[in-house]
């Protein structure tokens, strides 16, 4: 009797978990799914009330987005600047995160392993860039960029994006470096490694999962940045975030094309996260159990 009861309770428990998991997944996936559906609808289906789930799918939004065919989008047009915006996003985000990692690794290592005056304060100053409102930086940057010719350039944006990605990189890498036992480092030193050797031959290989997490998350932050490029970029350097709002026109909003743009913009992040998912989970929980 009792074994039956416990089996039943186990069954109902796993059923409850399954239902819970389903709700959670539905909750997470729904917005994405909704945008995907919108991107496949024609304008009248998009504004239909109640929302329709049975419609003839159309690729017009994607065609308009990539090739500039306006037949599906009404009279007011959107130039197909989107491919260029996409390339801009790739250049700027990859550039920004590469620079951040390059500069961030030595900085994080120093903050993790060396002792020097004002170490804590320095680390805090790096962090503080993250919680100062962007507007504090953007007006001076706007002025300086106009003067020195960095305005509307990829390099200028890569530099400005350091405000987003560098503090984050330093702090995340620092915590990963600190996880690695000092003994390993000392052993390497005894075997004749310089501090640079310790970093490149021991610390970095050991913290590869952490590095992967840093790169992916930093890339996402950069990819999603909106305010800096809005103020500092121009027509030739806008990333997809600023590009996506171009679908709000004066007397209409091209929801379908905006949704298509969102789907395409989300793809790199989606693919990257799937590729390195196991690293991310490992990295995020690294050191959770000692």
């Amino acid at each position, binding site marked *: 009797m009792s074994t039956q009861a416990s089996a039943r309770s186990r069954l109902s428990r796993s059923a409850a978990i399954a239902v819970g998991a389903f709700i959670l997944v539905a909750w997470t996936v729904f917005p994405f799914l909704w945008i995907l559906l919108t991107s496949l609808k024609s304008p*009248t289906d998009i*504004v239909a009330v109640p929302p329709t789930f049975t419609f003839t799918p159309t690729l017009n939004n994607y065609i308009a987005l990539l090739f500039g065919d306006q037949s599906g989008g009404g*009279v007011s*047009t959107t130039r197909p600047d989107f491919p260029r915006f996409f390339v801009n996003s790739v250049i700027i985000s990859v550039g920004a995160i590469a620079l951040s990692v390059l500069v961030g690794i030595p900085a994080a290592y120093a903050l993790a392993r060396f002792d020097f005056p004002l170490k804590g304060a320095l680390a805090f100053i790096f962090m503080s860039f993250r919680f100062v409102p962007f507007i504090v930086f953007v007006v001076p940057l*706007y002025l300086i960029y106009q003067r020195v010719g960095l305005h509307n350039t990829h390099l200028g944006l890569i530099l400005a994006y350091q405000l987003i990605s560098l503090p984050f990189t330093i702090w995340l890498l620092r915590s990963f470096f600190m996880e690695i036992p000092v003994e390993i480092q000392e052993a390497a030193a005894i075997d004749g490694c310089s501090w640079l050797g310790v970093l490149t031959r021991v610390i970095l290989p050991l913290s590869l999962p952490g590095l992967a997490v840093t790169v992916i998350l930093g890339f996402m932050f950069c990819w999603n940045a909106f305010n800096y490029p809005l*103020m500092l970029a121009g*027509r030739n350097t806008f990333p997809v975030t600023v590009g996506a709002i171009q679908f709000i026109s004066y007397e209409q909003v091209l929801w379908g094309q905006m949704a298509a743009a969102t789907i395409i913009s989300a793809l790199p992040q989606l693919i990257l996260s799937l590729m390195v998912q196991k690293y991310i989970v490992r990295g995020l929980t690294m050191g959770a159990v000692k």
Partner: protein
Amino acid sequence: MRLHRRSFMGLMLAMSTTPRAFAQSDDSLAYFRRAKINWRQAEGQPLALGMNKHPFTESLLPLIPEFKELTGINLDYLILPENEYFTRLAADLSQKQGEFSVIMTGPMRNWQYVTPGWIDELDPFLKDPKLTDPAWYKLDDFIPGLLSANRWSGKIGAGVGEGPLYSIPVMAEGYILHYRKDIFDQYNIKVPTTIDEMAEAARLVKKHAGIAGIVARGTPNVAALATGYISGLKSYTGGEWSEIDSNMRANLHDPQAVKYTETYIDMIRESGPPNWANLQWYDAMESFAAGQAGMLGDADIFAATFEDPKRSKVAGKVGYALIPGGSGGKTIAGLWTWALGINKAAKNKTAAWLFIQWATSQRTLLRATLNYRNLNPTRTSVTTDPRVKEMIGSWGGGSYVETTKKNFETARIAWVPQPERTRLRDIRARAHHAIYFKRMSAADALKKASADLDRVLKDAGIRP
């Protein structure tokens, strides 16, 4: 190499989207060369435009090669949607960088830019025979009310329509009543001419047709109160009332304003959509286009969406009428014009003016309306062009053309010129939400709003 590819791409696009523009190119150049000015006096100079995302702007893009051939000026441009555009423009103007030489602005915006000296007066350009051929350009072809809306004496609290011209209008919108003619006819509902009749019509539509009787913008942001509501209130008071009186005192709690506001908000609470307080302009427009509402008092140009069967379920079913007036029956609606102006910090103003003259010429504006539905036209010659008439003449069984024409005869800028307009509207929007959610009576809420506004005006030094 990169530049080459980009211009090639632009050319391909231009050709694929508007072959007409190209076919007319030679013809077009001949037209512009009839102007007795030297179009090439700024040859080789660069010129940057800061533009709002708008059908007018888009109509210019395929014509850029033509402008280059005519003037030898090298155009660059930045296009952003309204909110982002004004953020970016404010940075440029306030830092006096001259990033954009030609800007897209309009009457209420000009008030903010004139006082600190950020934009140029255009009269000197118009009067200089080297820069403008008046006989060819025909300034008097512009609809008088629309042109004068872009003049301001610079005196806070007055002087709209007087003094220097700061920008030249390229499109105009007035506020009218869009209503579902099919439903009104079916249930014998009278097209309203007063706010009380409007409330009654909204009730009847909701009762019989089972959809919202009226839809309106409701978010507490800048645009929410600028259109149908203020036009109705102005009409209700016969144009006597303004939100700030001649002594620069807030007048929101004026008894007539209270009465109108109460009726208006009660109507929306009773017969409007349940989520009014969250509706953006496009939500209101799209819900009307989807057949979810009986009336909408808002921008006349929304008709372009309503009458397009690809984007609307109510094409051919909409009627257009003036915003219901007061007991006198006279409508005094608000209006807005997008217009081109010159940044005072611009380095190459001759090129800037040549561009404006080209972009606001009869031919360019006509092409904007014909090829890109840039509505409503600001030049009489465009409004009366047979091809334009053919395009919009059938809307609402002819009621669109008739209504907008009549509306622009009496429409005027609904606001008192002063630089604190944004805060004024925040204050008022808060009051409206308080009334809507029954947190306060209309009289109390507007009295408090008046007091708040007085404080703002005083803090800003507008009133001693």
